[in-house]
């Protein structure tokens, strides 16, 4: 019975660990940044993750859902989740006050291949809530600045009022460490000081050697299409384009089946996939 596993000592991979909402920072309309800390002090110290990974968060009595981590592992102790109010679990999450307990398990997913990224230029391209996972990578890269060459962020939002982490990112514009290009589709308030237009327009301000660059993309489906077009025009190797994908996930550990794309589980093999993966997997984007 070689296949029969003895499970007497194995842990339950589905058990949420109790964690406390330390602080809730309102972002834009229907988006909040939740700062969360485990109750178990041991876990506070030992919990680490890679940029691009996600956790399963349980609102007690409502249910569980996946959320990508917005904080960087270089800042241990508190996990930050940037959440859009969009469904069953997030509706309930938005009703919680600071100091409420939630369940957290993870981290799950492959995350960005940070070791592989070292020594390269990093081009981050985000649209809308896509900034949530990329903020983790951005801050990780900035905290380990010497390990990377040029760092470029291209982030587009519909208008200035809908730009996530706006002030945090505006502060980066004057830094030498990173070329921070922010754009909005429309600026009706006429207060916006950075670019206007779609995110792909920002490519004209970027001169980068694709062979020494990794591009990390996250945003709405439609954005992927146009950004990919631009990257391929510039001869980006298909395996140097990294995309963070979203799927229905109910277990996070490659069992429940919902996030399956072709022969990959988004929760185990992703959520970070290369464009080469995408070509080989049907219906990925």
């Amino acid at each position, binding site marked *: 019975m070689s296949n029969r596993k003895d499970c007497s000592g194995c842990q339950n991979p589905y058990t949420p660990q109790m964690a406390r909402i330390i602080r809730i920072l309102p972002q834009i309309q229907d988006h909040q940044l939740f700062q969360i800390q485990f109750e178990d002090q041991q876990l506070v110290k030992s919990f680490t993750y890679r940029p691009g990974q996600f956790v399963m968060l349980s609102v007690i009595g409502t249910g569980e859902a996946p959320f990508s981590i917005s904080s960087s592992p270089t800042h241990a102790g508190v996990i930050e989740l940037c959440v859009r109010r969009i469904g069953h679990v997030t509706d*309930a999450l938005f*009703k919680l006050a600071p100091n409420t307990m939630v369940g957290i398990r993870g981290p799950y997913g492959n995350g960005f291949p940070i070791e592989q990224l070292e020594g390269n230029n990093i081009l981050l391209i985000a649209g809308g809530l896509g900034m949530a996972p990329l903020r983790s990578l951005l801050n990780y890269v900035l905290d380990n600045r010497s390990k990377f060459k040029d760092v470029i962020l291209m982030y587009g939002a519909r208008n200035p009022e809908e730009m996530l982490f706006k002030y945090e990112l505006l502060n980066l514009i004057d830094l030498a460490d990173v070329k921070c290009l922010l754009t909005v589709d429309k600026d009706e308030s006429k207060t916006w000081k950075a670019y206007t237009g779609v995110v792909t327009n920002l490519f004209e301000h970027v001169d980068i050697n694709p062979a020494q660059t990794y591009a990390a993309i996250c945003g709405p489906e439609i954005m992927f299409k146009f950004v990919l077009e631009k990257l391929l025009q510039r001869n980006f190797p298909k395996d140097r384009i990294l995309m963070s994908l979203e799927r229905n996930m109910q277990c996070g550990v490659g069992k429940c089946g919902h996030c399956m794309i072709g022969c990959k589980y988004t929760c185990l093999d992703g959520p970070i996939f290369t464009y080469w993966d995408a070509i080989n997997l049907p219906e990925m984007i």
Partner: protein
Amino acid sequence: MEKPTVGIYGLTGCAGDQLVILNCEDELLDIAGALDIKFFPMAMTGNDEECPLDIVFVEGSVVQPKEVEMLKKLRERAKLLIAIGTCAVWGGVQAMKNEIPRDEMKRKVYGPEGKVFDVISAQPLSNFVKVDLAISGCPIEKEQLLHAVASLLHGDLPRLPTYAVCTECKMAEYPCLLLEKGQLCMGPLTVAGCKARCPSYGQPCRGCRGPVEEANAASEAKLLKEKGFTWLDIQNRLRTFAASADSLKIESIKEGTNA
């Protein structure tokens, strides 16, 4: 937390769904303790017909103009309006023959005296007002009601099954009545939640809980025809409980456009 104020109303129907609430014998005290029930004439006196309500449960379908008014007023009074029972969700059995003009129907049933009734075709609540949650069933399932009440108390809407009765029937390993006995079973089209109660007694599903989203009635009709059922048998079964549901509309199935 303040107890939510609740009203329980019945439009045209058999009151069976309200009865399910009363039949929650073991849980009745908990329900009464958790909710501030302001209106439930089936169960109590001293009902308040004007107060604002956090939640209103409405049973039955709309068959009279005055019920339309009543329903609209309830919608204004209540933060959450919950349709309970297949009549409220889909129109129910009284919507079975909606294609017959009401005047003709009144004459057939009541003779010349029928004129005094002011009726419209039987319709689900959602034809007139926004429905926040639909708990179907003829009658509703007690377990679903209790979970719904608990979720509402917690501040969420409950998540009800969206899959078909076949799923629950298979989970319980009841022999398939369609395949084994060639019976006219609506299990593939009907939304689960009853734990396949009828098949558990060897009775085919009649579709009393209304259809699943995107019910493939054309394929069901095709397979039933192959089993020897007439188009009339199939039509009658399809429109027994949820004739108003787009996916069960017999006209479109006949034309083969629903597949």
